[in-house]
């Protein structure tokens, strides 16, 4: 019996709402395109000056533990998956790990801990590793969390975008957040994780890179949008879904909901359209999204949607969900689970 399930999910969204219009007004020269129209993103949340990757993570963990039957001291693993590694307004740490700092902060002293870095696939990658630790009997439960300060990318992009074809445009679509997920072994076979699977298309490894800017203080993300949105790449998602579902004896009809990577309304439509064309189905599973309101929150994006869908009672008991990751690398990931 190797069933692992989501024991609880926590979310923290900073209070400050920032509109796409507001960002565009800060740009000099003003962008040649209407970014809200192109992406469908109306608002996103930005952290306050006092918040950072650690505090966003801890706030999400507190929410998660409030909904959990476990206490921090019961946790046997703590895995941090943040891409941004800020411990204050500017310092990004390599040592000690964020997982150690947060583990000590919440008092999860029994837990093994480490940090995972796999771009926007981080949360799913962390959950995969925790699932394997549980399935192989090393731990009984654990926590995967991420606190993402993506607004630091936006700050750089606003300063540096001077050209309508800038490779920093994707940095205007992001938002800040924290998520936390507790997994545990489950006796109840009617719910839990069916599978988590990945493939890595490293041909595209240099088409989206994040590193400190070489023009200003701060960090930046540079992406080759035309290559990353090419139909050649988009087509790999339905192929991977097809190969993976076959491997696990499932079909697209088995799903009630899909949660795509929350990059932009237009990108989600493109991905969903490609899946529908590939599988030649008239009716797709219901697509859950929150990108219009919260933007692309990188590693946390699927769990922002999932948490809000649970809180709004959208997900029916017994329904099956497919989460689809598309991350720099390029990493394609799928998480299939029953609620």
């Amino acid at each position, binding site marked *: 019996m190797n069933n692992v399930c989501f024991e609880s999910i926590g979310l923290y969204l900073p209070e400050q709402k920032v509109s796409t219009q507001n960002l565009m007004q800060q740009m000099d020269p003003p962008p040649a395109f209407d970014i809200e129209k192109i992406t469908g993103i109306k608002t996103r949340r930005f952290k306050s000056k006092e918040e950072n990757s650690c505090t966003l993570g801890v706030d999400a963990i507190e929410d998660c533990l409030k909904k959990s039957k476990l206490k921090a001291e019961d946790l046997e693993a703590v895995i941090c998956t943040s*891409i941004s590694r800020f411990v204050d307004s500017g*310092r990004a740490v390599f*040592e000690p790990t964020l997982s150690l700092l947060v583990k000590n902060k919440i008092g999860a002293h029994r837990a093994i801990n480490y940090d995972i870095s796999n771009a926007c696939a981080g949360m799913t990658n962390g959950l995969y590793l925790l699932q394997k630790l549980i399935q192989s009997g090393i731990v009984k439960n654990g926590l995967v969390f991420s606190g993402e300060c993506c607004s630091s990318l936006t700050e750089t992009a606003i300063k540096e975008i001077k050209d309508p074809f800038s490779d920093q445009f994707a940095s205007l679509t992001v938002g800040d957040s924290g998520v936390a997920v507790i997994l545990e072994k489950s006796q109840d076979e009617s719910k839990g994780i069916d599978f988590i699977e990945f493939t890595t298309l490293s041909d595209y490894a240099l088409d989206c890179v994040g590193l*400190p800017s070489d*023009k200003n203080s701060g960090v930046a993300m540079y992406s080759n949008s035309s290559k990353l949105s090419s139909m050649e790449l988009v087509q790999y998602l339905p192929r991977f879904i097809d190969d993976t579902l076959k491997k696990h004896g499932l079909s697209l009809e088995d799903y009630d909901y899909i949660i795509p990577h929350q990059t932009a309304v237009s990108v989600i439509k493109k991905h969903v359209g490609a899946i529908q064309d590939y599988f030649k189905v008239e009716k797709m599973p219901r697509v859950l999204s929150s990108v219009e309101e919260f933007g692309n929150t990188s590693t946390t994006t699927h769990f922002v949607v999932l948490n809000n869908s649970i809180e709004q009672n959208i997900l029916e008991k017994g329904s099956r969900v497919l989460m689809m990751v598309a991350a720099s690398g390029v990493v394609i990931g799928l998480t299939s689970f029953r609620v």
Partner: protein
Amino acid sequence: MGTIITATGVSVDKEINSSMDHAFKAAENCITNGNIDRTEIDVVINTGVFRDYNLFEPSVAILIQRKLGISTGYSNDKHVLSFDLMNGACGFLYAAQAADSIFRSTSMRKALLISSDSHPSREKVPGFPYSHLGAAMVLEWDENSSKGFEKFEFKTGVTDFNGVDAYMDTMNQGSKGRESISIRKDDNYVERLSSFAVQSIEEYLKSTDMAAADLKGLKLLTTQPAENFRSTVAGAIDSIETVGENMYKKYGDVHSSALNVAYHDAFKEGMIQENDRLLFSASGAGLTSGTVLYNN
């Protein structure tokens, strides 16, 4: 059945100052040394900490995967997972545990673990405390073997003592963020770390309930953040002997690659034999230690 080491490789060329180049070269050497079919690699895990240009996306593991030509495009039946696992000098043992748990619960059978550290500027910078070096190891699941890793144990101190703070100050480095890293070490770090390592090893050996005779033949491999670290740790534990040369004397502090390099060199020099029982002990990452037995 167990997770066994099937190949190792290192990159120690002093002219190389790029962590990426070191990791790639170590991985190529490892693949060649073990005559590994790279199409059979299922997982790539990078445990290096200090990387070229302070890159934070994508993972270094993916860049190495690409350079090695491992599953670069889409394949219907071969899917590779690559990611970075960071935990200072202890990362290697956590990655070995991750690979072991993946092998035990999936059909994946082969993992490439890589590590390297260098100053982000890709230059030799005075004051940077870690040697520029890379290491790689292939771990494989062997269904019929009595060899391999036994129980992994990890322990962290209940303390806010970090020992080392390594960070890039993104707000105060102007346009030099790709070339800058700040590292502050507490004076008593190595001393506290060695005491913590001794305590962790003693607890580990007690928990395995090992007979005194077995303990006598154990060969200890440790991370070596200082010249006398290994001897201090070994000296505090009855009947345990170190194996291989003093890595710190040979290379300096090789940080995330320490255990991998220690195993590689000792094995190559014939100091590790078939059926030897090894004890890997990793220390670092704040006050963290990892301990695991390995049947060679």
